[in-house]
């Protein structure tokens, strides 16, 4: 075979291989390149299924409000721990649905997360059915993460919030690693 023929054959083979590969990719991802965003929506629906315990992740409210994630936390343990001025109110966090950048994937934990700003976020396992059962890195199915500083300023004793852990967490601030203290409420549904 002539050199040009060989080159042509090689290019054609490479093109076919690349085409096949890309087809496989798009076929697997269901036609979207934002696989995290798509899968997080699916996983979020499963999280809603466990609502009704101490956490309300109100998917219905989200749908009705026309595009907001809405999360409520029972304030009573915080009030018992000295928090002032929050009687009768639930903590409410919301984020606009179309802000894709608020949605993230935490590879080390195999979690999705929604960042609400102000150091508050919510993480949930990518797959609640298999989380912690396949030798994965952790067994926390969902975790509430709150920034304790404004609460401490409002009189909260963070060490004494029932059902919540006050612990150091590795985060990135401005892209740099830092250790900050957070209030954490993990749930293991296993």
């Amino acid at each position, binding site marked *: 075979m002539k050199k040009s023929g060989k080159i042509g054959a090689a290019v054609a083979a490479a093109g076919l291989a690349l085409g096949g590969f890309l087809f496989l990719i798009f076929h697997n991802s269901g036609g979207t390149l934002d696989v995290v965003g798509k899968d997080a929506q699916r996983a979020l629906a499963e999280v809603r299924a466990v609502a009704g315990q101490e956490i309300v992740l109100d998917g219905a409210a989200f749908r009705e409000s026309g595009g907001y994630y809405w999360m409520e936390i029972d304030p009573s343990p915080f009030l018992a721990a000295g928090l002032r001025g929050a009687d009768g109110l639930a903590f409410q966090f919301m984020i606009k649905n179309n802000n894709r950048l608020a949605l993230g994937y935490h590879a080390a934990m195999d979690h999705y997360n929604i960042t609400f700003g102000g150091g508050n976020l919510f993480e949930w396992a990518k797959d609640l059915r298999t989380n912690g059962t396949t030798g994965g890195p952790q067994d926390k199915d969902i975790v509430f993460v709150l920034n304790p500083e404004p609460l401490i300023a409002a009189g909260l004793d963070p060490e004494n919030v029932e059902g919540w852990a006050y612990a150091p967490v590795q985060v990135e601030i401005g892209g*740099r690693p830092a250790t900050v203290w957070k209030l954490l409420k993990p749930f293991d549904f296993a």
Partner: protein
Amino acid sequence: MTQTQILDIRGMTCAACSARVEKILTKQAGVAQASVNLAAEKARVEYDPARVSLRALIAAVEKIGYQALLPRPEKADEDRLRREKAVRVLRAKTVVSALFAVPLLYIAMAPMLTRWVTLPYPPALDPMNYPLLYALAEIALVIPVVCAGHRFYAVGFRALWMRSPNMDSLIAVGTSAAVLYSLFNTIQISRGHFAAVNALYFETAGVIITLILLGKTLEARSKGKTGEAIKKLMGLAPKTAILLQDGAEREIPIGDVVTGDVLVVRPGAKIPVDGVVLEGRTAVDESMLTGESMPVDKQAGDPVYAASLNTTGSVTFRAEKVGADTALAQIIRLVEDAQGSKAPIANLADKVSGVFVPIVCGIALLAGVAWFIAGRLHPDILRLSDAAQAFSPIQGGAAPLTFALVVFISVLVIACPCALGLATPTAIMVGTGKGAEHGILIKSGEALETAHKISTVVFDKTGTVTEGKPAVTDLLGPPDLLSLAASVEKLSEHPLGQAVVAAAQETFPAADFRSVTGMGVEAAVQGKQVRVGRAAYANAPEGEGADLAAQGKTPLFVSFDGVFAGVIAVADVVKPSSQAAIEALRGMGVEVVMITGDNRRTAEAIARQVGIDRVLAEVMPQDKANEIRQLQREGKIVAMVGDGINDAPALAQADVGIAIGSGTDVAMESADIVLMRSDLTDVPTAIQLSKRTIRNIKQNLFWAFGYNVVGIPVAAGLLHLFGGPLLNPIFAAAAMSLSSVSVLTNALRLKRFHPFPGKKEGRSLSAHPSEPSKQRKAGRLS
């Protein structure tokens, strides 16, 4: 009956290639010996044409994937252009590769560097939010890099298929493993296994290819520089000649000149080929060939040499030697042969290179499997400490397969047979080339290597330590003694008489010349009857001239009108450079011996003048080799320096035979080193150059071996066992490229070689051996 053939070998990329070509050539029936030089890209094959054809040898080389070509004469420009084109293509590939590899590295590494520095980063490629986009972007960037480095795959996998893996095979397998594993993980991401984003190694493959291409470019450029001496020699020859045919002049390419052509050379033009002057007078600057700075007068009957510069007049000459037969071509061939030859010191590196790649593949596989099994059994063993994660390809813990893959790729990529293969030939090329620049033609790598061990230098006397022709050394008598004696001797043909004539400023007409056999000559000059000859013939007093004879000189007695007038002493004078050369050798701790067939008294007189302590006098020509053998039996490494046919056996017997350029062709054939300038200070220079070259080779081998001995265990994860970092394959690639470049750069340091202080720097690159200049003869006393 064997014959030797040089073949140009193309397509070799590393020492494993040259070892493979050498092996396949040696295996052919009828091949007595084959030696392949990677740096010169040449094979030297000794074969029996009755048993194997050249065509079969070429086919055997081509069967294993390389190109074998018969070297063509006048291919200097072609070779240069080919090398320059290769450098240009490599440079273009490197630039293309770098253009894509740099952003690839950036998008891969920037998220990992956030713990130290925050770099601007496109949110849409954030691997934690958009892993599939991130992976596809990396694929898009790595494809052009892989295309730029396609030769590694074409050559490497073909070599692997032929069961003769080379350096390209290591690169091809290593980067292919990285790309295929990353493609697999991209598919995993598309299936929702987003953690696989941490196991993408496209940037590893991209940067490895770019760095290797960069290394190859630098290597090709450096290789070109190692052959600069040859280029300089080849550049001396003019490209065209003016042919005189049927009374008309026509400019023709140098390749069209045939023996017998009559050529015209104008002032300022270079002599195109070797020949003999037919018409005209001129002065020719032969400094580029002989080192003689003064132009040499040429007239009808005088030889002229290709590449020398015609300065004053226009001459017509007949071409006697053309193409490969010219003195210049022979010198070039000699240097090329030396540069293509191997020094024994290269043997170990050659042996290692031959088995290097398969062993490295084995180590890589073994290390990968070991880490994989260890990781499966004890996952914690794969976890890197915070400090060890710096610049590591793995952050935190890793799956056993990922860890094993990183180790596998790193070992393949860091192993570098190139440095081993280049360590010796590059230094030999630069060393022999540098020798040629100083008028020292070293005929083989073996000679270059042996020269550094020389403990004794034996000089032939006549023509080596001395000029080899008698000259007037002393005048005792009236001022007109020399001119009157020369006027008589002018009519004589005696060599001693010719020395007198050459020394005289003026001569007068002489009449009634008479030669008395065994006594002398006489004639009437300026009204005086002048006799020149033995003491009795010139009525010299008893004992007159005895002190001159004691100094090894021949006294010629002169009488005017029967009355003793004076003495003219004639002797074979010591070359101006002899004493300095011998001092330098003694300073280097080398014993200096003089050997001669002359009587002991003359020999010792000459030895005293130049500072030689040990004299072997009255040695018959056939016994010179025995004397050398005797010195060798004493455990000495002996160099013999000589010029005559009678020195040839001794030159051959010596560990290193050094022929003086003005000597006979037989002597130069027998010698290992030819000093083109007849300057004895080139002897210590040659030894110095040998020492420097061998030191350079040892440094190169040390670094090349050391690099692999240290690099491979580090890449295999040895440091990680002790809590250290895991080598990033990118750094492995950088180190691998640097190893070749550092060996080449070290070899190029030899270009800065200067002869010992006090030696006069000549301008020559080399010299034609056989024609002492007229100026040198005439100016002997000045």
